[in-house]
């Protein structure tokens, strides 16, 4: 701690601080452009020049460390002169096109020039013009406005892990851009829009849509990342015009993933469902809510009365809120229905989600890990913000290892990595567990596990990863979507939990966005009842579907399709219309999107975050918790007289507090060998994880999304099966035959074919993971 004085105010500050940090903490305003609290110091804009006693020159507050007894003057003649002159320099080559600039009204240059600029320019030469660059569908560039603060460049290198933006040219000819013009490949790219202090980098979808002062900001929580990024919705009249991050140091810090930034575009999509509808003789009729709800209840009740509640299945998207989840299961259970599930993409139900202790950890703990192992996780696509935390850990020296069915550039230093098929995945994990168990002298009391471990001596990879984990003061294991969606997911999870137990690591099974809330709310099958896969495979007479598309959001598209077609009654609560929905449903209840309802999301770090609705539901749609409340009432289920969604949360909390579940004994697989010749592995594309994203226009135009139509296989497998990239690939799985263009991609493990889900082709597959045969023939259609 040192004593300093800023503008006569005595302050005690940490000696590692810069003047600007001390001033910020004390609420003293120092103008700045290049400084950003989350980025390294560049000291290039010179806007923060202040007078410091004992210094001949004005000094940059962002780069001058505090020292004992230092006296700083932010508004002295020297300081103001320096700041004014820097402002004049910044403006001489600036186009001053504020009236047509999207940054207008929230431009740091505009704001500061009001305070420090001159009314009339003394610069009478021609201004610089810089060619704009096309860097993709999300970000618009107007590089003539750039003030070369390099915030965007530093963000790329230090946060996103991509050296894509950089400065070329010297002096006045210096330009910020991608060296070769192309789209930015970062799932965090949109943050440079916020970082850019001027209108050089602006949101493409938001271009010319609204002025900053016309919009009102509403706090909210983002629905896609399983951490609940804090966001602000900018609303004009009843429309969300854009989404920006809200600082929360313990969650998203100052950042937001592109998918949570741009998914708002879907809110106004023409495919939004706005009216309750019922099917009458194969025709859809718009009806009032009363009629729709009564039709739904009547239909369900008829089937229950005639065939029993076992013939009804309730399936709900894990992206719905805690309140929605709770009311969904409470209502169905009130009707006697126990076939309830939210684990729509899961195929292996051998273990139970409540089986594993939810140890306490924060995202900060993950960032401070010394060793991190990713298992079956394409972390950048699945959890961009968590990936950023892991990247920060890696850059600080943590050893990050990666075991997956395919290896892509995670934009961070990776210590050990291995592309595996399922058998190698299981034996490798078992090998790691074996090394640890020897290290920990655990071998005597663990016969069941010992029998599963491979007999061979551990591989170098297994030893290395095991050593990293056991040496780490803090270690994290992350099980991602690729593992969780696998038909042998329970085996993977069991092994990873065993490794965590042996090495004292924390184990994070990263589920879909709000899965924790669903486990708390118990949208899980009751005793002896069917899980999601069984509900599809065993074809029920009635289904209640909430918040998802059966063709895109389930593990077994064709089976789900057949089950729904065969069912005699289907009630769907959804926000987006589709042909398939109209073909299969009997009642459609339009539900509000997350911006239009209040609710609670529970992050993977178990933080409960509540948010309020910011706009009215579109058309005649309603918040789902209200729809479910009426459904409860109309069906005469008890305990449905909630006044607000808060009442629902209170009830859940109370149940939580009173609940004393008996610990479920750990699941131990009987064997670790899996039959697999050529296995299809499938990934849910980053910008298509739910209907909201699939209806977001700009995200669908990104290179990431453009690439999802391809099947991918490595060169070795291609040669083995006689495949080339010129001819489409035919995938045969039981009686479904699908043709996809093929890309030879050596990042895919041996024995695997990669496909992306949620495409038209993928929706014609029996199962998104599993045995598959491949062939190619010119003639096939």
């Amino acid at each position: 701690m040192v004593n300093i004085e800023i503008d006569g105010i005595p302050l005690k500050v940490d000696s590692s601080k810069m003047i600007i940090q001390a001033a910020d903490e004390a609420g003293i305003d120092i103008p700045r452009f290049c400084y950003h609290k989350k980025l390294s110091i560049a000291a290039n804009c010179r806007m923060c020049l202040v007078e410091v006693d004992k210094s001949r020159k004005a000094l940059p507050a962002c780069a001058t460390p505090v020292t004992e007894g230092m006296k700083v003057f932010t508004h002295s003649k020297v300081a103001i002169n320096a700041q004014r002159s820097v402002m004049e320099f910044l403006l001489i080559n600036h186009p001053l096109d504020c009236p047509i600039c999207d940054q207008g009204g929230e431009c740091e240059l505009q704001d500061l020039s009001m305070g420090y600029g001159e009314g009339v320019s003394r610069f009478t030469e021609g201004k610089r013009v810089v060619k704009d660059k096309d860097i993709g569908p999300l970000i618009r560039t107007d590089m003539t406005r750039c003030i070369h603060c390099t915030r965007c460049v530093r963000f790329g290198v230090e946060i996103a892990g991509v050296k894509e933006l950089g400065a070329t040219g010297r002096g006045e000819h210096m330009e910020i851009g991608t060296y070769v013009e192309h789209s930015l490949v970062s799932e965090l790219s949109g943050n440079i829009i916020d970082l850019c202090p001027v209108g050089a980098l602006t949101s493409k979808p938001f271009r010319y849509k609204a002025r900053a002062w016309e919009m009102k900001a509403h706090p909210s929580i983002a629905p896609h990342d399983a951490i609940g990024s804090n966001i602000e919705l900018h609303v004009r009249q009843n429309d969300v015009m854009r989404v920006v991050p809200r600082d929360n140091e313990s969650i998203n810090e100052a950042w937001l993933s592109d998918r949570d930034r741009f998914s708002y575009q879907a809110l106004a999509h023409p495919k939004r469902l706005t009216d309750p509808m019922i099917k009458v003789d194969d025709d859809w009729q718009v009806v009032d809510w009363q009629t729709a709800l009564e039709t739904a209840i009547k239909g369900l009740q008829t089937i229950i009365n005639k065939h029993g509640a076992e013939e009804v299945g309730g399936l709900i998207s894990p992206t719905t809120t805690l309140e929605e989840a709770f009311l969904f299961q409470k209502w169905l259970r009130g009707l006697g229905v126990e076939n309830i599930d939210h684990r729509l993409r899961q195929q292996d139900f051998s273990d139970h989600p409540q089986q594993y202790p939810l140890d306490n950890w924060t995202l900060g703990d993950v960032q401070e890990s010394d060793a991190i192992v990713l298992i079956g996780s394409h972390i950048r696509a699945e959890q961009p913000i968590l990936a950023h935390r892991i990247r920060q850990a890696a850059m600080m020296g943590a050893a990050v290892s990666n075991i997956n069915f395919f290896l892509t550039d995670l934009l961070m230093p990776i210590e050990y990595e291995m592309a595996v098929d399922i058998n190698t995945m299981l034996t490798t994990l078992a090998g790691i567990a074996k090394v640890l168990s020897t290290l920990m002298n655990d071998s005597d009391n663990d016969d069941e596990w010992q029998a599963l471990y491979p007999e061979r001596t551990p591989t170098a990879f297994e030893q290395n990863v095991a050593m990293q984990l056991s040496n780490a003061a803090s270690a994290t294991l992350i099980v991602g979507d690729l593992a969780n969606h696998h038909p042998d997911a329970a085996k993977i999870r069991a092994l990873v939990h065993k490794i965590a137990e042996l090495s004292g690591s924390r184990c994070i099974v990263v589920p879909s966005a709000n899965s924790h809330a669903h486990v708390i709310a118990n949208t899980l099958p009751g005793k002896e009842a069917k899980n999601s896969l069984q509900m599809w495979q065993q074809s029920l007479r009635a289904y209640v579907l909430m918040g998802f598309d059966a063709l895109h959001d389930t593990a077994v598209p064709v089976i789900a399709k057949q089950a729904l077609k065969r069912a005699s009654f289907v009630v769907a609560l959804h926000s987006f219309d589709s042909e398939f929905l109209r073909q299969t449903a009997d009642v459609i209840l339009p539900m509000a999107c997350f911006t239009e309802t209040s609710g609670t999301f529970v992050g993977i770090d178990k933080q409960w975050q509540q948010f309020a609705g910011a706009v009215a539901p579109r058309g005649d749609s309603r918040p789902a918790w209200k729809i479910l409340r009426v459904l409860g009432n109309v069906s005469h289920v008890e305990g449905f007289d909630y006044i607000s969604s808060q009442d629902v949360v209170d009830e859940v909390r109370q149940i939580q507090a009173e609940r004393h579940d008996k610990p479920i004994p750990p699941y131990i697989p009987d064997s670790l060998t899996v039959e697999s010749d050529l296995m299809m592995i499938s990934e849910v594309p980053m910008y298509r994880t739910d209907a909201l994203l699939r209806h977001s226009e700009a995200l669908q135009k990104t290179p990431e999304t453009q690439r999802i139509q391809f099947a991918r296989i490595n060169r070795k497998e291609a040669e083995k099966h006689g495949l080339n990239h010129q001819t489409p690939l035919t995938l045969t799985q039981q009686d479904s035959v699908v043709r996809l263009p093929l890309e030879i991609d050596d990042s895919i493990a041996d024995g695997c074919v990669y496909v992306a889900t949620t495409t038209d082709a993928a929706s014609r597959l029996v199962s998104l993971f599993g045995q598959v045969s491949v062939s190619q023939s010119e003639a096939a259609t």
Partner: protein
Amino acid sequence: MKLDQVCFRTNHLSPSWTLDAYRQVGGYQVLENILNNKLKPESIIEQIKNSALRGRGGAGFPTGLKWSFMPRRLPGDKYIVCNSDEGEPGTCKDRDILRFNPHQVIEGMIIAGYTIGAQTGYNYIRGEFFEPIERFEAALEEAREAGYLGKDLLGSGFNFQLHTHVGAGAYICGEETALLESLEGKKGQPRYKPPFPAGYGLYGRPTTINNTESLASIPVILQHGADWFHELGTPNNGGSKIFCMTGHVNKPGNYEVPLGTPFAELLELAGGVRNGHQLKAVIPGGSSTPVVPAEIMMGLDMSYDGIAKARSMLGAGSVIVMDDSTCMVKALQRIAYFYYEESCGQCTPCREGTGWLYRVVKRIEDGQGKQEDLDRLVDVAENINGNTICALGDAAAAPVVSFIKHFRDEFQYHIDHGRCMDNTA
């Protein structure tokens, strides 16, 4: 006057740049003595301090003091870097040191490495210096073969490797921290200081950067003693200095003379001002240093403190002589253009200001000047001065301020008449 006492001490030999030639003047004896007797680094630093050697790269910072900032005992990598980027207009001395006496630079760097605890050295040589690069590389080869480079030098346990790095034509890479960035393979842009290279230098490790001439002076100081060197020059301005005499002199070239030599004698040595012309002004230390009018210049001694009396700087010893045919507006335009082109562009006042200065000066030279331009030029220059990351901003401002201060009437004439005064070209 004692000529060629330090860096050019092999000049009387032909060829002067071989190991043999260097050995004839006592080359590498100092190094051998240091290694054989394991001299204490502290004592070497003490001698350099006593010699009053000041950095020859432009700033004139005492070399011994700079070396003493190095955390010598800190474990891990440390570096010695020789700055042979020599980009300052008017400067051509390092080129000739590398051409005619490369071994002295090598010996100086090894001694520096030994003293500051660095086992690796880099010589960053200006990319256009084809012949000097070849000569330096050849000398490195000879030194390696003779056992002066590599592991366990002369059985002393001290390891030292020396590499050449060739620049790519940017003046700014001569600025020490931009040089480090460039060495690391990045865009050559100066770093903000603090931290200084002695704490955070190449690859984040403690680093000392010295000019070629500074390093080449080291073996001579240690061979003949600090006092000998100091007395060669004047108090606080030890040794001799190479002056690059360019411009309107009869015998342009490099002249190594003791610091403190009167300018008049130096001019004489360079054959005097072009025949039939009068001296008008001199830029004494390279284009970044303020111009000095003839009558003041003729009374100055060529030393750091001597030139400072005229509010200019000795800089790198690059003496640009201008006779009465010189249009000062045109001269300033050329200088302003240089800084406009060479600004790295990262900090606002320099990026924007150098172009502004150049355009206004050009406008005056083109006969389009306005009355308010003169004060504006000075004002803009003063707004750059002191407000930038590196000294290039100051370097761009200094000529503008000094040219207008000393030759305001010529600028005024250009604005009023749209052309040069009659007695100039």
